[in-house]
């Protein structure tokens, strides 16, 4: 339990992805089975308990200490698990610190009534870090920012294998993953991925380099289709098992029962998950309403019906198509989709074109209908097999040019990790007229990348030299009609938002240029942004 507690503690303070990976990889290397497997499952949320209600924990601690002192402690710390972990008045005794696996086994088998005295004994035996980890585990809220994507990468790092190899077997494994570690440490064969409904690692596209690529590529070698703005999914229906996976192999089936129901076919589709209403797709914001939910209600299903726009076929019946060229897979995909006869599954149409210039014109001004809210175009070589990973050449993505606005820097916040000495997160605003006809800046977004290291240094200097007020790690900077720094902000889309004062929320905003030359009063108006709101 101690090593797990230390790991959890370190992860909770670590922002950098690479540092997190190193912490977890080292933990997996240093700790025995089955503890390390349970720990990994706990980190990714695949193992959670509701063995103890916060109220019961509070009652246990108040039985042991003055409730007034506990109350003040809780007020000061602000987190129940952390407070209890720190103040717990341990009864001295011969308690042995429990191993993580002992805790897990007990929680999986014991009833709630049996668990309560166990918990107290564990709390007595652990140190504050251990108690904190235990309580977080018990109440089901680790929240240390470790996704299953990272878990797979940490495992790949441990075994020095490709992450795709881990992804392919992942869903076939269950905690505590002893077979996985045996393979990663070279003690056994790779666990079998050959079970029905398994995930197949996806093929990804490289961004096209307009200046150098088109000169070398023959338009006749490539098919073009629109790049839909949803999330990439793999919809597998195999020998009675139906699964919907994200592109990293996370199983999201339970979030999309409507899509699962439509998967009456036998095979594995690669496509885009979108909100679909009568054959028309919704914007990304619509799909967002459905993502990351543990449960879905009928109203959600009705308001935001989801479907798949298919663009590749990996498995047709029992035949694996991945080695076939795209042209052949596409042909089979077309008949596969029409045979499926579902309003929730349609085909991503190919976009005919003759020349790169012609395609560029289409990209700049897409035809009416769904393509107008596409993210851009995809180019796929007719002869390309379906290869896992991101090979350079067979598939390209050619994103639409971003929207640009000129906004004024209003607030800056210190960054994390490498950037902790820099004011690197910028909140910017545009002009809005109030009822009296006065113009004020209203914040419309926040961006923390898009600039070079040198530009970061310049921005940091500007913030430090023009600070008006400080609020903890945030500084407000001089910004008004006659003085202010204009930032050209690029973003992918704009949606209405009730959470933001300005009423709009940007997708993927980043700083594209620093306009040292532009007077602040000439920055954009909120009205300009409102005109860009996405309407399919």
């Amino acid at each position, binding site marked *: 339990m101690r090593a797990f507690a230390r790991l959890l503690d370190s992860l909770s*303070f670590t922002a950098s992805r690479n540092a997190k990976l190193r912490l977890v990889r080292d933990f997996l290397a240093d700790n025995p089975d089955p503890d390390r497997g349970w720990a990994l499952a706990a980190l990714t949320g695949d193992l959670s308990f509701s063995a103890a209600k916060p109220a019961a924990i509070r009652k246990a601690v108040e039985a042991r200490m003055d409730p007034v002192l506990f109350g003040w402690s809780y007020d000061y710390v602000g987190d129940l698990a952390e407070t209890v972990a720190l103040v717990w008045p341990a009864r001295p005794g011969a308690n042995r610190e429990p191993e993580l696996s002992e805790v897990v086994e007990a929680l999986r088998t014991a009833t709630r009534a049996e668990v309560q005295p166990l918990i107290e004994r564990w709390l007595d035996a652990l140190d504050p870090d251990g108690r904190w980890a235990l309580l977080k585990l018990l109440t089901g809220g680790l929240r240390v920012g470790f996704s299953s994507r990272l878990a797979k990468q940490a495992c790949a790092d441990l075994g020095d294998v490709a992450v795709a190899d881990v992804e392919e077997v992942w869903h076939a494994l269950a905690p505590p993953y002893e077979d996985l570690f045996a393979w990663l440490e070279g003690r056994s064969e790779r666990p079998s991925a050959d079970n029905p409904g398994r995930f197949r690692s996806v093929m990804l596209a490289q961004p096209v380099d307009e200046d150098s690529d088109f000169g070398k590529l023959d338009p006749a070698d490539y098919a073009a289709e629109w790049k839909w703005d949803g999330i990439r999914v793999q919809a597998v229906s195999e020998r009675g098992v139906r699964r919907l996976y994200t592109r990293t192999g996370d199983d999201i089936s339970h979030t999309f029962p409507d899509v699962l129901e439509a998967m009456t076919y036998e095979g594995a589709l690669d496509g885009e998950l979108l909100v679909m209403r009568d054959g028309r797709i919704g914007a990304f914001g619509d799909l967002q309403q459905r993502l990351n939910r543990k449960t879905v209600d009928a109203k959600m299903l009705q308001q935001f019906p989801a479907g798949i726009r298919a663009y590749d076929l990996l498995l047709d019946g029992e035949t694996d198509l991945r080695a076939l060229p795209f042209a052949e897979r596409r042909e089979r995909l077309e008949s596969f989709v029409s045979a499926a006869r579902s309003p929730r599954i349609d085909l991503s149409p190919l976009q005919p074109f003759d020349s790169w210039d012609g395609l560029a014109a289409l990209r700049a001004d897409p035809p009416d209908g769904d393509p107008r809210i596409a993210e851009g175009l995809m180019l796929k070589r007719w002869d390309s097999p379906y290869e896992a990973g991101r090979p350079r050449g067979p598939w390209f993505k050619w994103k639409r040019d971003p929207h640009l606005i000129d906004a004024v820097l209003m607030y800056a916040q210190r960054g994390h990790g490498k950037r902790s000495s820099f004011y690197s997160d910028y909140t910017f605003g545009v002009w809005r007229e109030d009822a009296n006809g006065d113009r004020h800046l209203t914040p419309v977004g926040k961006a923390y990348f898009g600039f070079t290291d040198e530009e970061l240094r310049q921005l940091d200097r500007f913030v430090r030299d023009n600070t008006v007020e400080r609020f903890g790690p945030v500084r407000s900077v001089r910004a008004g009609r006659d003085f202010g720094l204009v930032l050209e902000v690029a973003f992918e889309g704009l949606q209405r938002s009730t959470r933001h004062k300005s009423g709009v929320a940007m997708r993927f905003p980043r700083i594209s240029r620093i306009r040292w030359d532009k007077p602040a009063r000439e920055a954009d108006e909120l009205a300009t942004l409102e005109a860009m709101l996405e309407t399919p």
Partner: protein
Amino acid sequence: MLKPEDILRPTPAGLYCPPGDFYIDPVRPVGRAVITHGHSDHARSGHDHVAATPETLDIMACRYGDDFAGAAVGLAYGRPIERDGVEISLVPAGHVLGSAQAVIRWKGMTAVVSGDYKRRRDPTCPPFEPVACDLFVTEATFGLPVFRHPDAADEVARLLKSVQQFPERTHMVGAYALGKAQRVIALLREAGWDRTLHVHGALAGLNDLYARHGVDLGPLANATDAADRLPGEIVLCPPSALGDRWSRRFADPVSAFCSGWMRVRARARQRAVELPLVISDHADWDELTDTLDELKPGEVWITHGREEALLRWCELRGQPARALALVGYEDEED
């Protein structure tokens, strides 16, 4: 019958002893001051007469210059002086080098002003000595049951583990310039780290002072003069230098901060600390309450910190106590 107020009384300038006509750790310039230790909120310049341990006087001279007071008298630990029937002696408080409790005896009554103190082992100063007394004046910097400091050696082990885990990065350790920095250095030496430690210029004067007083800190170098970005090395600096522009000279620094406040996660997160190390020179909750249990003084006065919780604890124990709410003592940096 004498009351505690006859021997000590809180005033806006600090605790005052009427029969001896002196203040203890006054926050504004006074005629006669007894100083418990060298931290700047307790040891201020500009008094006419100062009495303190020779180490504390040395620290004050290092910080404020040789003319920090009109006249200064060095009082070695356990060597009382007497004036007008009031006897005062200084005994170790275990807080930092030279730190002392002021023990005042008058007409058969004993008052102890602990100053800041801790009960843990510290290789850089002698341990706290309990003195039986009628009035015990205690601090309460960490006077909440959430403050339970772990063993400092375990915290240093965590630092060394991180250094081994991230050998390409510099570990920047923020530590208060007087006391904490030297204690952390001494603990690192005890843990076997015998390489050169790189230190911020603001720590150099006090490091030298500790060395002059016989505290061996091993090889130290000025971090600003380093030839490279110091990957795999440990740099000690004042807490304010973490996240400061000065930190950019190092290799993707891991910011570590040694403080009792690091016990509370939100505090560490607020400061964007990646490696919080709970190492404190103040007594934690258990040390505060165990000390009161051990001394069982006639009355307890609580000077600064989280008085209300310690007061509550005293109430529950039937220990007479009173909070003084003295102003001018900071607890933020420990």
